[in-house]
């Protein structure tokens, strides 16, 4: 028994003391689940082709990633935060307070947001106004706001098939939700003339009108999906009337199960998004902690490699997976090489 006790306690002590002087030789990345597949593709290729350790990539969402990014400077904080939206001023302030003052912003490309439904169901050709009329909580009718009466797509647009409205949209914790509200719902509100009607009702308060436009119905015809696109896909497989919001890359990997809807008669593809014809897209970013650049081995090389033509270029593996390559990639490469810090 005494031998057992001795080994147990000495092992416990060794475990704690040995790790007291812990140092890290790998790059640590966290953030957006939209950027995660791209970051892991780059991390994998980086580990294969360089003499550095393969970076560790976590997901968890843009906000959670940036929050951890802003915890401070040091080896037990992350080096890179992935984000499917631009960093907010409040987050920059929180970073500065914790000592993270020098941040390098890197835009890796664009991501398309598509609407897809079951492959055997009806085909749809949407406009943003259709989505506004289908999903808004309240619509302006004859000078008053009334609860959305539409329950069938044929009520929204006479050209649509007779199919009950059932939408699976990203939950509020997703960066995708923000893009969906601004580029589809708000746009549709303006296009359909509802915006002006609301302004007349509320007496010209623009902020309130925007909020009213972007309020999504909560009567069960629109379902928030807090999980990933795999959950949205499972919900559509269970309910064939469902129409879901997906990332372009996810759709391209599941074209045998999903059919995609056009927006303003444009089919979403890498080409139509990069040309700007397809309206619903957003830039993807990652943020580097400049203070870590000379401390964590491989961080500068990883960032350079991420934006290199071999990876993020139009013929690289990221584009193949569904990333819309950034036409200004050369400028991004230069900024990363020069460590161009934000706000300077």
């Amino acid at each position, binding site marked *: 028994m005494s031998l057992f006790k001795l080994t147990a306690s000495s092992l*416990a002590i060794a475990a704690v003391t040995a790790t007291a002087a*812990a140092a890290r*030789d790998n790059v*640590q990345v966290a953030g957006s689940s939209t950027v995660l*597949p791209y970051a892991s*593709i780059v991390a994998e*290729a980086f580990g294969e082709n360089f003499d550095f350790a393969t970076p560790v*990539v976590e997901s968890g969402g843009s906000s959670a990633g940036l929050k951890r990014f802003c915890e401070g400077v040091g080896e*037990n904080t992350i080096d890179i935060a992935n984000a499917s939206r631009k960093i907010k001023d409040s987050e920059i302030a929180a970073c500065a307070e914790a000592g993270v003052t020098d941040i390098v912003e890197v835009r890796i490309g664009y991501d398309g947001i598509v609407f897809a439904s079951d492959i055997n169901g009806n085909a749809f050709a949407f406009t943003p106004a259709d989505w506004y009329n289908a999903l808004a909580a309240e619509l302006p009718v004859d000078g008053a706001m009334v609860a959305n009466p539409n329950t069938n797509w044929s009520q929204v647009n006479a050209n649509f098939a007779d199919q009950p409205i059932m939408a699976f949209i990203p939950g509020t914790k997703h960066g995708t939700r923000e893009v969906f509200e601004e580029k589809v719902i708000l746009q549709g509100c303006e296009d359909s003339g509802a915006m002006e009607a609301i302004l007349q009702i509320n007496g010209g308060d623009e902020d309130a009108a925007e909020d009213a436009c972007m309020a999504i119905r909560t009567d069960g015809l629109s379902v928030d999906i807090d999980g990933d696109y795999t959950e949205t896909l499972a919900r559509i497989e269970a309910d064939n009337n469902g129409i879901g919001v997906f990332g372009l890359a996810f759709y391209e990997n599941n074209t045998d199960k999903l059919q995609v809807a056009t927006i303003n008669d444009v089919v979403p593809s890498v080409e139509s998004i990069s040309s700007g014809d397809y309206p619903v897209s957003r830039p993807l970013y990652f943020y580097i902690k400049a203070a870590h650049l000379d401390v964590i081995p491989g961080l500068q090389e990883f960032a350079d490699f991420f934006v290199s033509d071999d990876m993020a270029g139009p013929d690289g593996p990221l584009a193949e997976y569904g990333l819309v390559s950034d036409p200004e990639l050369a400028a991004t490469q230069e900024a990363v090489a020069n460590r161009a810090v934000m706000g300077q």
Partner: protein
Amino acid sequence: MTDQTQNLGRSLLETDARTRKRNAAEARFKAFGVAAIAVALLALVVLLTSVVYNGASAFKQTYFELDIELPEAKLDKSGTRDLEVMKKVTTIGYAPILTAALEAAIEKAGIETTLDKKAIGGLISKEAAATVRNAVLANPEIVGTTQSFSILAEGRIDGYFKGRVTLESAALDSNTSPEALMLAQALADAGYADTKFNWAFLTAPDASDQRPEAAGLGVAILGSAYMMIVVLVLALPIGVAASVYLEEFAPKNRWTDLIEVNISNLAAVPSIVFGILGLAIFINFAQLNQSSPLVGGLVLTLMTLPTIIISTRAALKAVPPSIRDAALGVGASKMQSVFHHVLPLAAPGILTGTIIGLAQALGETAPLLLIGMVAFVRDYPAAYTPEAGLFGEASTALPVQVFNWTQRADPGFVERASGAIITLLVFLLIMNAIAIYLRRRFERRW
């Protein structure tokens, strides 16, 4: 005695209305019991069938058996076989060599195909370039020769040989085509492609979303093993010491009552709470490495401790007091009586409780979310390095790998996730079997 007088004059074998009612009630109760078990079994069968149906194919994998020419002009322009120079040729530079080898095989087998060069290259996994590059860098002398390699086929081709992808689904799929599947079938008929047992699934590290065919559980199994070692080494001695003290030495007063209530409560605390605690104490305060099995093990130790303490105390209680009295009666000290007599008799119960606690910890995901173990990790974690310390290198764990794979876009990962569940279930089954064996083998009844 009034009952007997009432029943007088009737045979006991004759059932009256009341007895029939009671018998019927009993029969109903038995039927409910059988129905409950049937529902539970049905749920288990449905779960296991769906997991095995989806996951069994993860243990098989399609490979191309190719003779690959390794041209010096491309892989080592300097001709010096200097590793530093040869490393400059990345996996992107190796990909055309593989495509050429496959084209040569197609030509040799006399297969007609309408596919272009890019589509033919698409039959090969992106992992294959790394396989060949590593082989070349490990042995630079093979440059300039032709070597035979067994390289992975792309995920959808692999899915075709396992029945997951069909010609109909491929026609709708933008990542493959029926022609590609038919070419792969022709290659298999000519002996250039083969589906065999997938050892790499158990040993290879995770792979990115573009290579479901290369993803394996190696890092996850290693990380889980490290965590279990940490949990065992910490939770067992601490848990046993705490329960021996509480059960055998501690005075029974308000304080020990309070501790007892707290331990029972801790056993019911949601595991995510331990994750939050671990993040605050082990990572932010003690500055241990994120994503490391050490931190994961410490968090799971906290989670497992109450389970071990409760089961150890139950095992100690089950040792009859006469054993203690006898030991004390022949002059043993209190400590001697505990360590020489009570503890060995309680050992089977303690071990069973520990193994069940470990099995619970092995399947836990939630607390690991917060300490950075739900991640894409490709390097095998070393047990000890001077920089990262003991168990300090980033890793994942088995249940985390399941969670990760279910979120990936490529349908190939559905199969991998189910395969990982099968592996996890096998580990749990082994642990529970050991627990049952120990209990049967060493348990003593009085």
